[in-house]
């Protein structure tokens, strides 16, 4: 027992040295249980967000208003499924299977990004999600490409590359619509009005209310605080909004030359808390949709397993 502990101490030192060097940990390396647990939770939540995130945009695939836009949208939602796949693979290297995580998602034991609990109400939302939601996701995720766990960091590199392509596509859709009819322009503005505050919430609560940030930063799982990332996002987005010709619905939003940043108002954090707790406009619907697909597909997965087993037997 004493030996094991001594051994663990050494391993802990090795681990900390790796983190300190900004080197990457690989699945075969020893890691503290808390680190592993935090990683699994974070990667799973990210994977779930990709999968649940297919729904709000998927809602418009059938109604896309041109053949080109239909293909672009379908391909984008398909990419999200792909991101989910890479990320679930990263959790598998930590010993947790995709099926287990899916069960935790549909049981409500694990979360996904609260942004997807808001409905998509017009085709402009497809553009706004690309521009604001993927934009915010990129701000969150680019630093994760250098995260301390190898498989996660490599997955994030691929994800970020595709997300930034999606972000440009979203912006381009909105730009095209802003050059269209008055109704189209109004659709874009209305959509931005709905998504602005939920997009700011994507960075999580203010630093003062984010108790896990310090540990995650120490472990190299997180590299910037919520408020830092939120500020970065606002600074990046304001000039893009101007280029689009839309107004961001925040009367407190203005350039602060002293700080060299934009000042801006705070989202309704009580709303955020309610949505995270499950009471957002679409929480129940999103989880029910995922559960339905999972349950409807059970017989197919069983058939594939049974068929593979029979093939193996006869081989």
């Amino acid at each position, binding site marked *: 027992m004493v030996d094991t502990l001594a051994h663990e101490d050494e391993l802990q030192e090795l681990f900390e040295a790796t983190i300190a060097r900004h080197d990457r940990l690989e699945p075969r390396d020893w890691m503290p249980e808390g680190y592993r647990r935090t990683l699994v939770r974070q990667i799973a939540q990210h994977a779930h967000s990709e*999968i649940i995130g*297919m*729904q709000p945009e*998927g809602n*418009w*695939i*059938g*109604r*896309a*208003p*041109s*053949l*080109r*836009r*239909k*293909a672009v949208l*379908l*391909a984008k*939602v*398909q990419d999200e*499924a*792909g991101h*989910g*796949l890479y990320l*679930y693979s990263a959790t598998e290297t930590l010993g947790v299977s*995709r099926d287990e995580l899916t069960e935790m998602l549909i049981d409500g034991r694990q979360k996904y990004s609260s942004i997807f609990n808001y409905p998509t109400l017009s*085709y402009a939302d497809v553009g706004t999600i690309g521009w604001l939601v993927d934009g915010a996701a990129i701000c969150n995720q680019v630093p994760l490409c250098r995260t301390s766990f190898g498989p996660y960091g490599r997955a994030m590199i691929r994800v970020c590359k595709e997300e930034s392509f999606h972000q440009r596509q979203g912006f381009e*859709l909105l730009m*095209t*619509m802003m*050059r*269209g*009819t008055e*109704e*189209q322009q109004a659709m874009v503005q209305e959509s931005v009005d709905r998504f602005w505050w939920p997009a700011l919430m994507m960075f999580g609560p203010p630093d003062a209310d984010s108790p896990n940030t310090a540990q995650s930063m120490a472990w190299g799982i997180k590299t910037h605080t919520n408020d830092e990332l939120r500020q970065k996002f606002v600074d990046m987005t304001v000039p893009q909004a101007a280029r689009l010709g839309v107004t961001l619905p925040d009367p407190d939003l203005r350039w602060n030359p002293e700080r060299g940043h934009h000042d801006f108002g705070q989202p309704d954090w009580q709303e955020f808390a309610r949505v995270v707790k499950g009471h957002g406009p679409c929480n129940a619907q999103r989880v029910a*949709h995922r559960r*339905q*697909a999972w349950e*409807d*597909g*059970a*017989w*197919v*997965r*069983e*058939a*594939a*397993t*049974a*068929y593979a087993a*029979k093939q193996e037997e006869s081989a």
Partner: protein
Amino acid sequence: PVVLGSYALMLGDDALVMAQRLAEWCSRAPDLEEDIALANVALDLLGQARLLLARAAAADPGLVPALPEGSPVPPEDRLAFFRDDHAFRNVRLVELPRGDFAETMARLLLFSTWRLALLGRLRGSRDAVLAAVAAKGCAEVTYHRDLAARWCVTLAGGTEESRRRLVAGLDGLWPWWGELVEAHPVEVTAAADGVGVDPTTLREECEGVLDQVLAACDLTRPDVPPREGIRGGKGRDGRHTEELSRLLTEMQVVARAHPEGTW
């Protein structure tokens, strides 16, 4: 060019309507791999539809619905989003509700077996655009057919339930098969002109392929007669099932709300 236009429209509508149905699976498939695979098939068919509808519009501008002066909607989108169901020329097989995963794969097997045979021959079309679409499409549809065949075999040999569902899917779809290998006058003329393919000449090849897949499933071709048309007309004549107008209602709603929209 009128025949070429109508012919391209038929093949384009087949692809478009099938893609619309397949895309319904997005976020609903049994597993992420299948979600991605079905989206791939839909994307390939959407791509074919776009080229074929554009070809149809170029060959016979009379096919293209009129929109308000100055509308920026391109011709292929006018064809996709501004025609009513009776102006669609797809076979009825592709418009049927998506059904369960077994039915979807059974339908994809029938459709892609037929389309692969057709595109294979269409590579020799005197129309350079159709020939090019066919050449590119062959690789795509080969993948579709393999995907479908693999799943049919898996479901047939999987569990009792999966086999039961596959058989039910095949039985329910078979009555719609005959329509694919029947010749509409436009197809006959297009074939005579050297731009298209007479689908009756594909029957033997296709049913041979299907028999092979069915044999691997330990099944035989369902013994059911074809579904009747209406006044002798079927999908190629614009006489469809009740499903098509519902499918189009969804597909066209945003485009039609903005006939002068730019997307």
